[in-house]
């Protein structure tokens, strides 16, 4: 085919261009001197690039577009296919992706949570290792070791993290708290005191969604962390973990009480709808990842004025993280364009364009902090100083078969609030921890 011929030709040219650039490049202008200040992989001047993600909401979509703009500048003429599938936490998107992979039609690069979620794709031979690419681009020098650990599997690195999110954040409506003389709860006990006071005023204390089927599981992981603490919490997701620990029941009971303080139409709302309830002043708090921050900004709200943030109750000093990353598909239709994309994802420039809009912090340690707003600066600081634990729901801690079981156990719990049943179901789910 003519097009493939052209592509090959471009490939040759771009390699030549790269070689020339490498020879003739002056010393890196950055004083912090990352070894290879992204000369950016070959500038592409044609072809297509399909990027698969679940970023459709305000904020995240803006961030993605900002990266696309940069990509287009660097690679003029490449047509970007923005394959997004709506539905928070990628629950729908992952399903779609799998059918495409099963059908042998991968997008060039897809969004994947850094961590255990990667392993199923790797095991099925659907990804290309990127260890060499990381060295070439110098990403291994500028990303925290804890993060690199999470994207390394079978001795290779498999994806390029573009950001870090915090999942255990309490978002609250500042006005409601001020008017009622309340302060955001630090501990679980505080939470129930505050919730009781709010309930008495006729305000929904806690907004919880359910439509995307990850919201209650998400809430529960912060409760688990509060009950188990940062040392024991990660052990819960190791193979052979002991879920008959009485603390599981204790956590379930707390979660039950929390849900009793939440809106009753949970299952018909998405996480963004729940966040909107807080913004509208109909609910006081919601526990959600800091993509909610991106959502609030996208809605024109101001941090510190319209809404405030705090660690989830009982989660003080612990940063529960997750990271969105992009991998390279084996059999990608446009591998060169995809590599250029990955180079952008890992670059300081790309991350600093994406993250302030998305409402997340960069996965690189050398980002320009001044570009980030108040909350994100706080988060960047917290990420480097607090204890780090991975999120289960968002793929960093456990494989997908487990997540599905864990998620379903908690969705059922969100509906029937049956502590005995959820404890049993979680015990059963642990069989899928492999």
């Amino acid at each position, binding site marked *: 085919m003519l097009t493939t011929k052209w592509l090959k030709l471009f490939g040759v040219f771009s390699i030549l261009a790269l070689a020339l650039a490498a020879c003739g490049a002056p010393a890196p202008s950055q004083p912090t001197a990352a070894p290879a200040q992204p000369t950016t992989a070959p500038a592409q001047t044609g072809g297509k690039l399909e990027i698969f993600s679940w970023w459709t909401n305000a904020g995240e979509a803006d961030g993605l577009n900002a990266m696309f703009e940069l990509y287009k500048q660097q690679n003029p003429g490449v047509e970007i296919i923005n394959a997004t599938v709506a539905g928070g936490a990628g629950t729908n998107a992952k399903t779609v992706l799998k059918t495409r992979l099963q059908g042998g039609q991968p997008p060039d690069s897809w969004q994947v949570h850094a961590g255990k979620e990667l392993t199923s794709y790797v095991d099925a031979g659907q990804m290309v290792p990127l260890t060499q690419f990381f060295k070439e681009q110098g990403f291994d020098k500028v990303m925290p070791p804890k993060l690199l650990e999470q994207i390394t599997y079978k001795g290779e690195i498999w994806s390029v993290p573009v950001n870090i999110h915090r999942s255990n954040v309490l978002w609250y409506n500042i006005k409601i708290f001020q008017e009622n003389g309340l302060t955001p709860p630090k501990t679980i006990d505080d939470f129930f005191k505050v919730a009781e006071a709010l309930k008495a005023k006729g305000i929904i204390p806690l907004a919880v969604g359910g439509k995307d089927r990850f919201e209650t599981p998400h809430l529960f992981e912060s409760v688990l962390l509060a009950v188990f603490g940062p040392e024991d919490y990660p052990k819960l997701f190791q193979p052979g973990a002991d879920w008959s620990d009485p603390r599981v029941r204790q956590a379930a009971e707390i979660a039950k009480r929390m849900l009793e303080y939440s809106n009753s139409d949970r299952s018909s709302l998405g996480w*963004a709808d729940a966040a909107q309830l807080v913004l509208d002043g109909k609910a006081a708090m919601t526990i959600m990842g800091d993509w909610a921050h991106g959502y609030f900004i996208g809605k024109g709200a101001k941090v510190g004025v319209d809404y405030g943030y705090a660690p989830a109750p009982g989660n003080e000093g612990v940063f529960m993280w997750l990271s969105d990353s992009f991998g390279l598909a084996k059999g990608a239709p446009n591998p060169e364009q995809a590599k250029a994309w990955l180079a952008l994802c890992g670059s300081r420039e790309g991350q600093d364009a994406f993250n302030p809009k998305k409402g997340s912090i960069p996965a690189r340690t050398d980002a320009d902090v001044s570009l980030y707003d108040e909350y994100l600066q706080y988060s960047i600081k917290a990420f480097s100083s607090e204890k780090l634990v991975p999120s289960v729901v968002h793929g960093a801690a456990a494989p997908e078969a487990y997540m599905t079981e864990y998620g379903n156990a908690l969705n059922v719990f969100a509906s029937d609030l049956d502590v005995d049943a959820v404890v049993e179901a979680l015990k059963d789910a642990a069989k899928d921890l492999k």
Partner: protein
Amino acid sequence: MSSVAIPAPGRRRIRWSRVVVYSLILAFLLFFLLPVYLLLITSFKSFDQVSLSRMWDLPTSFSLESFNRAWNGGEGVIGMRGSFWNSVQMVVPATVISCILGSLNGYVLSKWRFPGSETLFTLILFGMFIPYQSILVPLVEVLREIRLYATIPGLVLVHVVYGIPITTLIFRNYYATVPNELVEAAKIDGADFFGIYRSVMLPLSAPGFVVVAIWQFTSIWNEFLFGLIITNDPQLRPVTVALQNLSGSQFTQWNVQMAGALLVALPPLLVYIFLGKYFLRGLLAGSLKG
């Protein structure tokens, strides 16, 4: 209501039953039109009028913003324009091929019966009832093998194949009403298989083709599961999948969802409005057998 049920003077018993009939019929009318009402008023509201607490208010001004967003996309919404075209590309060939195959099969099974043809017919018919989940994974594997996965031709193939039972059924039952004497006469005149088909069956087939075409058009247009599994690529997916994806996005854009729903509903609705008689006949043909 009472104005409709004007009674014939002096027949009190009937008058009361009329009142009951008309109240029921109007109550059901309300039930059937309520969603349509919501669909229409919401779709034509401008963005600043869209609020859940004023969900049932009439739009104060006429706006096509929602349609524009649903059709062209923007603000995190992927427009359905492309999907609409995909659906057209899928539906037209699938419908045409289905009609031809169904007609041939119906002709053979009604006029050229052979030992076991009834069994074959029953076996084919069973294909109409199976839950497609039970063939999904092998289907993907095979389509991938023959390089038709994630392509519109692949989707056409699937719709044609799984449309064989219903199209065969409709045509077979339709051709069964063509008197065998006509066929026999043609045979005596020396016409062969295709000769009879051309000279006897085809001239009488027009209504059969219309019924099958309408049936296949609407059911393929409205189909979701195959589209979801086989062509989920935003570049390739049919409208139903695009609409479902639209409804997965944010709360505040529910007016866009409504406009999208209306757009998806439009082609089959037009068919229903203009060819309702045949549409109904198709429905009944698919259910009342023999």
